[in-house]
């Protein structure tokens, strides 16, 4: 592997979340974006060719090294790492609404789910999966919520557009979730 590839590998290795292309490009000011991309490809190929236990994943609008799926159980059983807690149905439903309707206020989420979502919003915010992205106009100027890069990371998605399109869902509806997710 050439030096840039090594540097990128070391950089991805020392980051605790996905690293964007521009951050990687900042590692070596002499390197062009094309060279960085070529290095990322070399790294991907090298992991496959030599048969490594880790792989290069593209997610949350960046790059991250991850262990290969087949080793998860053995690692978890040896208590060397733990899988993240699973989200409750309430949390998943709330996330689903926010993902598709963002920016969206609490009242609208509650109307769709039919329950109060106060506690759920707070815990999603504490887990950094959603954040306040603004305030609506009108009475009380309610807070508006949107999803965060951590949300994408948790789901292994690269961008919001990777969510299933509304037309792909089996329940077709004329109105509610008409808006396509927008990337920021």
């Amino acid at each position, binding site marked *: 592997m050439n030096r840039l590839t090594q540097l990128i590998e070391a950089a991805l290795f020392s980051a605790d979340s996905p690293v964007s292309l521009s951050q990687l490009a900042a590692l070596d000011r002499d390197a062009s974006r094309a060279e960085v991309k070529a290095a990322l490809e070399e790294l991907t190929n090298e992991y496959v060719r030599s048969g490594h236990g880790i792989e290069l994943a593209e997610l949350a609008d960046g790059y991250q090294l991850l*262990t290969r799926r087949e080793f998860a159980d053995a690692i978890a059983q040896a208590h060397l*790492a733990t899988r993240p807690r699973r989200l409750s149905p309430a949390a998943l*439903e709330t996330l689903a609404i926010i993902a598709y309707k963002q920016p969206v206020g609490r009242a609208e989420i509650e109307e*769709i789910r039919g329950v109060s979502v106060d506690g759920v919003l707070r815990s999603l*915010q504490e887990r950094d999966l959603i954040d306040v992205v603004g305030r609506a106009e009108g009475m009380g100027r309610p*807070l508006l919520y949107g999803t965060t890069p951590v949300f994408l990371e948790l789901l292994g998605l690269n961008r919001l557009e990777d969510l*299933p399109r509304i037309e792909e869902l089996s329940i077709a509806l004329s109105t509610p979730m008409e808006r396509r997710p927008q990337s920021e």
Partner: protein
Amino acid sequence: MSGLTRAVAVRQRMSISAIVEPERPFVVELEEFSGPLDLLLHLIREQEIDITDIPIAQIAHQFLHAIDALGLDEAANYLEMAAWLLRIKIQMLLPRPFDEENWEDPRAELVRRLLEYEQVREVARWLEGQADLRSGQFSRGWVPEAPEQEPSPIVLDLGQILAAVDRVLESIPQPVLHRVVPRPLDVEGATRRILDLLESSRELDFLDVIGPEPTVADVLSALMALLELARVGRVRLMQPKPFSSMAIAGESTHPTD
């Protein structure tokens, strides 16, 4: 294939009938349902009801029964749904105008919300699947401290601060006028202990009664127990001289019980 669907449906029906069994009124399975729409959909799906033609009287009855059995009948969100169902039921009973074309089905809004909610659930299931898939891959566990670095920059925005203010405001308790500190007096326990001790010896010292390293509550409990026992004639209390320890004697001469 339909046999399988059938079997699943039958099993689910059994589960709901277990829930609404009158002799198990306190099955708290709140976690089972993420809200009134979820419960409603469950009732509709398990009976293979056409969602566009809901037998509203039947469903309203089952819904009320289920929230009662599940102990959800005090949860505002469920009550709200129950009230809505009853209102639709009444509207369905009203005579329809002659020109059926202009008749608006009172169930329309309910159907719209149920379908919308089903869509949300479908997305939620997809998200869950994705999260499961992703959780099979670990990222780097140990991240080294960067050598000799300026402290990393802090990101802070107005939205975060405002959200924090909201959280704080919501968590502020109602003003406390006075605080009642519950005293953990255990007079019953002390009474039992004293009577047990009197079983083995006719005469006791107060220090025996309160035990080693007593707390204030222990002393008070023992004192109140002794006073009560003396009042009903079970013990006799004596103090040989001023400031000496109290002597306690069992009153066997008084067989009250």
